[in-house]
């Protein structure tokens, strides 16, 4: 039925785990009191009337981290097949991975030096 063994269970468990929040929300809908509109629907802002919304333009400092993350996450994914097959590959694979990681460490050092990893 499935080309790879075990993944039919993945599909089944996906359905079951999706059913949990859906059933919980439906139960909540049926059992909870109905909402009366008014003050309670205001956004919380420490008791004051909210001034403006949150959907505005501002400087998100995390985007540099997100860029560096993309580099290193892809690197890690590349290293997974190497790690699984390492016992059959021997010394040459070790040297190759060493070169690969060295290049990325240079990239990390560059980002570090350029201040991409600084908060301020």
């Amino acid at each position, binding site marked *: 039925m499935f080309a790879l063994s075990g993944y039919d269970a993945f599909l089944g468990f996906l359905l079951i785990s999706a059913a949990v929040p859906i059933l919980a929300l439906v139960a*909540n809908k049926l059992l909870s009191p109905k909402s009366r509109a008014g003050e309670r629907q205001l956004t919380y802002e420490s008791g004051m009337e909210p001034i403006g919304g949150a959907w505005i333009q501002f400087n998100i400092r995390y985007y540099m981290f997100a860029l560096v993350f993309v580099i290193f996450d892809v690197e*890690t994914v590349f290293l997974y097949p190497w790690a699984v097959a390492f016992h059959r590959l021997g010394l040459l694979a070790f040297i190759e991975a060493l070169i690969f990681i060295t290049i990325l460490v240079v990239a990390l050092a560059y980002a570090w030096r350029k201040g991409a990893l600084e908060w301020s």
Partner: protein
Amino acid sequence: MVTTTGGLDLQASFETTLEGIGLSPGMAHLLWLPLPMVLVLVAAVVGVLVNVWLERKISAAVQQRIGPEYAGALGILQPMADGLKLVFKEDIIPARADGLLFTLGPVLVLIPVILSWLVVPFGQNLLISNVGIGIFLWIALSSIQPIGLLMSGYASNNKYSLLGGLRAAAQSISYEIPLALAVLAVVMMSNSLSTVDIVNQQNGAGIFSWNIWRQPVGFVIFWICALAECERLPFDLPEAEEELVAGYQTEYAGMKFALFYLGSYINLVLSALLVSVLYLGGWGFPLPIEWLAGWLGQSVDAAPVQVIAASVGIVMTVLKAYLLVFLAILLRWSVPRVRIDQLLNLGWKFLLPIGLVNLLVTAGLKLAFPGAFGG
């Protein structure tokens, strides 16, 4: 194909029995499929209830209070009462929020966390599915969670929520890489991504062959990153209540709040289970069960021995996991919260380089001593 090397195999027995009464193999398999899933789901929820109770009781003990005591003996029913209360709470969607994303956020946080239990092994064949990518499935699924957090933070249209959501996303992505690198070193020693193979590789000589002795640095990296991914104190910046009210949860009430709550505790139990699988020998008893059976003059393949061994395995897995949960709760009350720049520095400038070095050292040691590092 999944190879089975001894141990209790309920699936095979179940399907053989059903085929014995005249069902087709496909039908027997279909009837079997939902059973372990429902069982694991119930186990996860019970695990969370116990975890919440422990958290409240241990926190109380740390602060010299009594903690919950009226609902059931020693307040053991308190988490259930809390959950039941939340079901009956009104569901408030702020007027200025984006209703669809607001609802989708907590759902998207919970589903991957539950789904990750697919690969948690409680015994040689006692898991839902021994899929080939095993532990990598968990790493992939844990990347989905920040999307849900960011989504709910943004959809609330609340300044605290937005900041909390952004912090949650930054924190998750910063600690995912050292986490993946720590797992990578274990995977290299096991030559497999499958969680069952990872445990089997550790159970040659009982407690002495557990990965924690061969991967002490990896263990520490993994534990710190797991706490950060679960947003536990010292790393609970996304919901730092003194500065951000409750972060991305600020606008949530009723069942949607309960979904976040459930998600974070399921994640904590899951992380503790995975630490025990990756570093503490999973279901392994401190002495190999084969030695004990041989010492008592029993065959490991005898049915009663198999049942006892499987039960001991489940108890050991849960025991190790809850020991780590206990540690996490104590850490919560012993360590102050870090600042966001300290958090990001720790992840990028400390754990990431250490993780890379740990990986290369493991590879080098594996070349030098193939026997001790999984061939």
